[in-house]
């Protein structure tokens, strides 16, 4: 039952948008993305580049630690933040 926090710039891309805070039952980061995509089709294309891998300028933090490995495990107590990298211009 990971607690997942999604950025405004991501949820705004969907006509029936996911909430900014969503609870997802998943055992790994990759499975979390799959489950989000099952409910909001297309969200995986926004988060993942070919590989598959987390897109270069998307930062994912699990319990405060930056994580890019889709096999990274999640527990019921995990808190996941998805945060676009800061950029200027």
């Amino acid at each position: 039952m990971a607690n997942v926090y999604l950025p405004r710039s991501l949820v705004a891309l969907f006509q029936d948008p996911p909430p900014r805070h969503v609870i997802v039952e998943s055992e790994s980061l990759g499975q979390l993305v799959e489950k989000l995509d099952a409910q909001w089709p297309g969200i995986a294309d926004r988060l993942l580049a070919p590989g598959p891998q987390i897109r270069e300028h998307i930062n994912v933090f699990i319990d405060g630690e930056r994580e890019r490995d889709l096999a990274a495990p999640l527990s019921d107590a995990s808190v996941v933040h998805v945060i676009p990298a800061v950029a200027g211009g």
Partner: protein
Amino acid sequence: MDRRAQVLIGTRKGAFILESSIDRQAWDVRGPFCETWPIHHFVRASDDTLYAAGGNSWYGPTVFRSDDDGATWTQSSSGLTYGDTEPKITTIWNLTPSADAKTLYAGVEPAGLFRSVDRGETWTHVGGLRDHPSRPDWEPGAGGLCLHSIALDDTDPNHMWVGISSVGTFETNDGGETWQTRNKGVRADFFPGPEPEFGQCVHKLHVDPTNPARLFQQNHCGVYRSEDGGQSWTEITNELPSDFGFPLAIHPHDPSTIWVVPHNGPEAGRYMVDGHAAVWRSRDRGATWLQLDAGLPHVNAYVTVLREAMATDRLDPVGVYFGTSTGQVFASSNEGDEWRMVADFLPPVWSVEAAVVEG
């Protein structure tokens, strides 16, 4: 029935719609749309669907779609990939609907072509182009390795041309299974030695909507016309003040008439020649040219008009529109004879398309 003129603007920070009554005298601006994503191309298909294509550095490439004239939007890039072991697609440069709006083509970076037959919900790679034997030697130009021009033969759905920067023009007659280079007669001054089979830097390619044997291109090294479907090209730069520029537009009813925007050269700033804004028009397929600058700034206009940033409408007289790197949009309602600035302070303009909206 009410008719409105509409100009669709793709910018570095979102899409915008300029609208006017059919007299094209007073324009309003709507937007920004598409969550302020960089939009390389914003078009209206013949079924009145709006499509805006681009990509951003966080979330990748996508195609936005609106079925209600911009009020609401969806987006999808499903299938828009070369696969997990191939280079990632960074953005979409061109989105071209077929005349009946049932098929969409997307040109992407790194250069490749995709097709959708479900209004952009899903995309399929037209893999034959990247299977071309020249592909290992494709090198990016200053703007990247981008497929930016898609010229469809409205009489034959299996027949089309594409243009790729610093690679050149390709033609297919079998729906994209196989492709042939079409660069004969086009200079590539940046290469030593004889004219290469490919490597020419096409900047914008269009097919005559009334005659699919006739093509025009603005190239890095001149303006060209083909009368044989791209088998050979004749340079028509003639008295233009520069052989360098990005956009080219064809008159929708009189294809002897074309417009270009000469720029001062690839190593000289790539802006309007001498800072004097001007569009040049030919009424004879490029044999002679006339400078059109009434209403445009004549001094200190160090602006660029990018490859997708000029378009015509289908009214009579034809309206011509262009957008600048500094966020202005200029319009002419008399085929370029006179111009007015109809929008200012937009983000840098990347694409301009025009439409007439019924109802």
